[in-house]
């Protein structure tokens, strides 16, 4: 059985139907990457999985905790679902008035009622794991972007969740520090964490993920083996999107050419890196 099961998930903002019947299974111990154009609903999907956003209908099951959004779940039910997930935000959202360690232990102590002693011990272990044990006493503004995001990852891990959700964890980072964060994530995958990662780091996705999902306009258009979905997509919409991610300057009328079949990977790096397209740098 899958650790995460999403069934018929629908979510609108007013007239804007952002998620239109999402179905997804994520097996325990596996990594799923989600790619898709800006505004297609990736962030909303992750937020619906842990109840930060309330879908109109559909069911989300994580490790036998199930929330059916049609029947107006209670706060307690949503809390239980959320307690099974750790969320890593695109813009880290660390608490600016608390140190790295305090950020990490906040959830265990004040959300889950763990003892401070335990939380500090485990928190230090996690900071060690993301390479920041020596910065435990630093405030977020004293850390670099990559360090902040790694604290964000430790904060998510501190909840001892079943499932880790990453929303474009490297999109806001300078290119030269993206690798540090991706490396931490790859180590987590190797340790057997179940992860859902929204990212445009295609290279990371093909190396680390077990499953890739391409979303467009609130629906899953294509899903399967990352090598296939990301390097040899079948659907025209996936092809079109990946061509743009891999080469933002490409003429949008030209047909898709798989980077594995040609030397597209060796093409000159784009001069302008758009927010969505910056995965190219890591790939070249």
């Amino acid at each position, binding site marked *: 059985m899958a650790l995460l099961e999403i069934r018929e998930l629908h979510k609108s903002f007013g007239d804007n139907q952002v998620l239109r019947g999402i179905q997804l299974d994520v097996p325990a111990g596996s990594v799923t990457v989600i790619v898709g154009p800006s505004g297609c609903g990736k962030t909303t999907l992750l937020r619906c999985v842990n109840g930060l956003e309330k879908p109109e209908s559909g069911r989300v099951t994580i490790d036998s905790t199930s929330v059916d959004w049609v029947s107006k779940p209670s706060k307690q039910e949503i809390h239980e679902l959320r307690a099974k997930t750790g969320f890593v935000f695109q813009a880290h959202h660390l*608490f600016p*008035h608390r140190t790295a360690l305090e950020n990490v232990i*906040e959830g265990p102590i*004040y959300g889950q009622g763990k003892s401070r002693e335990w939380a500090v011990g485990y928190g230090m272990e996690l900071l060690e794991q993301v390479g920041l044990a020596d910065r435990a006493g630093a*405030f977020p503004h004293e850390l670099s972007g990559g360090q902040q995001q790694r604290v964000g990852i430790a*904060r998510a891990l501190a909840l001892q969740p079943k499932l880790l959700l990453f929303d474009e964890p490297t999109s806001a980072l300078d290119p030269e520090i993206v690798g540090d964060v991706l490396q931490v994530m790859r180590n987590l995958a190797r340790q057997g964490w179940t992860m859902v990662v929204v990212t445009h780091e295609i290279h990371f996705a093909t190396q680390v993920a077990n499953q890739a999902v391409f979303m467009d306009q609130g629906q899953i258009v294509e899903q399967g083996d990352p090598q296939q979905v990301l390097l040899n997509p079948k659907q025209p919409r996936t092809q079109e999107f990946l061509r743009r991610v891999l080469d933002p300057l490409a003429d949008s009328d030209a047909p898709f050419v798989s980077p594995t079949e040609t030397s597209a990977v060796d093409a000159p790096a784009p001069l302008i890196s758009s927010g969505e397209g910056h995965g190219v740098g890591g790939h070249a």
Partner: protein
Amino acid sequence: MNHWQLAVDSFWPLVWASVAGTIPLTLLSFAFGLVLAVLVALARLSSLKPVALIGQFYVSVIRGTPLLVQLFIIFYALPFMGVLLDPYPSAVIAFSVNVGGYAGETIRGAILAVPKGQWEAAAAVTLDYWRTLRRVILPQAFRIAIPPLSNTFIGLVKDTSLASIVMVTELLRRSQIIATPTYDFLTMYTEAALIYWLICTVLSFAQKRVEVRLSKYVTV
């Protein structure tokens, strides 16, 4: 008795009136006022319509009526309702109620200025609403609110002089009492003004220090 001699002789009594009257009146009113202000801000931000409306009404009344009138109403209304209080606690209540309205709006604005991501991060680490407020949102909101709140505080020091009208022996009332037998009101009121000015100048100086120290943790 010449003016100068009067001023010198009354200096310590006036300092004492500040220390025993004006300053505690200000501190107590501000402290209670802040508690009220947080409640007012939360009421204004509540998703429960009636609660939000009560908050809005409160702010509207406080900001739409003179402080002196509020002071009179509380001073005369409490005995009418069977509550017999000395002038001093009545004044504390009146000033607290007033601060609650003004600082409530300040704190509401400051809560709204805390980035939305902070609410989400707190929710994501499974904090409930009250813990999110207490541990994540309010500490940041207070840092944002410190400059306007310290203006409110300094304003309150001066506003407490209104309590002299309901016979609270604070700084202004004391100078009035000293002046009455001598008819030298000008000297005494000038001296009171100088002491108010001194207190406010010291506070402004402290305000700048605090702002510099806190500004580095505010990330908006």
